[in-house]
């Protein structure tokens, strides 16, 4: 049966019904996914304000404040633990990693995207392949290298090693952004008497702002996420990042400080999620530029 055979009002009714069903389905699926994704976080959000004599009663409703909520555990987190140190360490590492990554990945991405090198394409793929070598494969010899350099138990260990993860993926992302900037702009600046370096600095780099933002977000996220190197290199709490500090330091023996622990997670996860949500469309565009168009 083709659409010519059907009378038009019936077809329209069917289309409307399908449309309504579609909207209903969209909302149902969206709500189910949102619920499942957020469930442990919402439970964490409630737990962090609960009094211990409410939280640790097995048959109390876990989703309700059976006793008045308290900020005591939040205070404890900031006063009695090294949480602020972990955050500071994470930011310091993130900043240093961002600078190293930009300094090394921007030139590579430019060269591969712009200089029409004969082996440029192969080099681009090789850089992407480096990203496929996970820290799991390298952390044992890397620990020896870090010890040999005398960098164990310091933030320098992480600052030195994290760019090995950020440079490949950033170079790959930035290549996409460079390809999105018309070559004519740069050539015009060179005709106007600038050197190539001058043209890059004056004309190209300002237009790379979105790509640079992407790298900054990526480097800071990695510094907050990375677990295996941070756990292997640094064991004293003064040089832990949030990824290793929170799960290991807010536990005394077998006793978990659950409320403070959950507060520590919420205070990190929500801001990062807000930043990512704001940049999501740009990331998708960047990914599409780098990946799909090639």
């Amino acid at each position, binding site marked *: 049966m083709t659409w010519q055979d059907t009378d038009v009002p019936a077809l329209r009714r069917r289309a409307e019904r399908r449309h309504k069903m*579609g909207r209903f389905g969209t909302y149902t699926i*969206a709500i189910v996914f949102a619920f499942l994704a957020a469930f442990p976080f919402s*439970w964490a959000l409630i737990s962090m304000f609960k009094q211990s004599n409410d939280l640790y009663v097995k048959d109390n409703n876990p989703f309700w404040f059976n006793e008045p909520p308290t900020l005591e555990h939040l205070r404890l987190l900031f006063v009695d633990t090294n949480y602020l140190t972990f955050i500071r360490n994470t930011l310091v590492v993130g900043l240093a990693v961002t600078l190293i990554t930009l300094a090394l990945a921007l030139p590579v991405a430019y060269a591969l995207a712009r200089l029409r*090198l004969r082996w440029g394409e192969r080099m681009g793929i090789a850089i992407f392949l480096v990203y496929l070598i996970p820290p799991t494969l390298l952390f044992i010899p890397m620990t020896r290298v870090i010890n040999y350099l005398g960098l164990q138990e310091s933030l320098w260990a992480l600052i030195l090693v994290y760019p090995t993860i950020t440079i490949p993926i950033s170079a790959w992302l930035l290549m996409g952004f460079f390809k999105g900037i018309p070559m004519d702009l740069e050539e015009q600046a060179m005709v106007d008497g600038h050197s190539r370096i001058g043209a890059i600095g004056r004309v190209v780099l300002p237009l790379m702002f979105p790509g640079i933002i992407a790298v900054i977000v990526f480097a800071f996220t990695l510094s907050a996420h990375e*677990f295996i190197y941070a756990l292997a290199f640094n064991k004293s709490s003064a040089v832990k990042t949030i990824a290793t500090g929170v799960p290991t330091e807010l536990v005394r023996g077998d006793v978990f400080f659950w409320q403070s622990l959950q507060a520590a997670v919420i205070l990190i*996860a929500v801001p990062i999620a807000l930043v990512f*949500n704001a940049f999501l469309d740009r*990331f998708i565009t960047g990914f599409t530029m780098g990946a799909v168009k090639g």
Partner: protein
Amino acid sequence: MTAANAAGKRYLSDNPRFLAAVFMSPAVIYIIALVGFPFVLAIIYSFTDISTGNPELNFVGFETFRRVLADPVFREALWNTFLFAVIANLLVVVLATALAEVLIKDFKGKWLVRFLVLLPWVAPVSLATITWLWTLDSIFSPIDWVLRELGLITENMYWLGRPGSAMGSVIAVQVWRIVPLAAVIVMAGLIAIPSEINDAVAVDGAGSWRKRFQVTIPLLAPIIAVAVLFGVILTISDMSVVYVLTRGGPTNSTQVLSTWAFIKGIEGGALGQGAAVALFLLPVLIGITAVVLRLARRREVL
């Protein structure tokens, strides 16, 4: 040819070959020193009996591998790594495709849905896993509370205390945290499908299910492959989920290669054996590399 030539080579830096060498060598040297060198070292270590107590490189041939393979815990870890990766990524593909189709539509409250759905991915893995450790607590788990209230159970489930449910929990948490990333990748693919194709399908009168299986999914296949690629790397190489949730327990039933390499190599100090355990990831990674290279040759994806 280009303006660069027209303007003449007034600066050394205008020479593309010179510029390429200057621009590429710092990063290439960095990567060779801190990825290439440790990689070679990892292979060398696995043929020695190096340990933190005795950091000499004594070559012992395949002895280290023999000892690693003789350990039943290692075989358990190898099997679990495989099992977790396969089950988790099958679920990820199905769920991420469904989620991506919803997220590219316009609807009220989309901003909030996107924010909530992204949480598992953007929160640091070890911290996100901590929320699950609490959610699956042996005594105070809210899931158990709901099940008790509904009268479905009388005793708690001890999710992380029994081998079967501990494995299920590890897989579920991996799926939970990877689905958002995979959905974002698939979204990029859905957006890239030209609207003329969708229009043509609509004119032909194909229903939404037929459209999904005969048009959308075949067009999406390459990008879904990219999502699976990331998913497999994340599941086989990640150790934070298992380390934080179960530390490989109960009785090594959730042990995977990454946690076993860490426990042997760093916590146990047997660097050679730890390196050898981690090297078993290499065949999978080489396989993935081959897929990437194939996709790269087809150009429309990479």
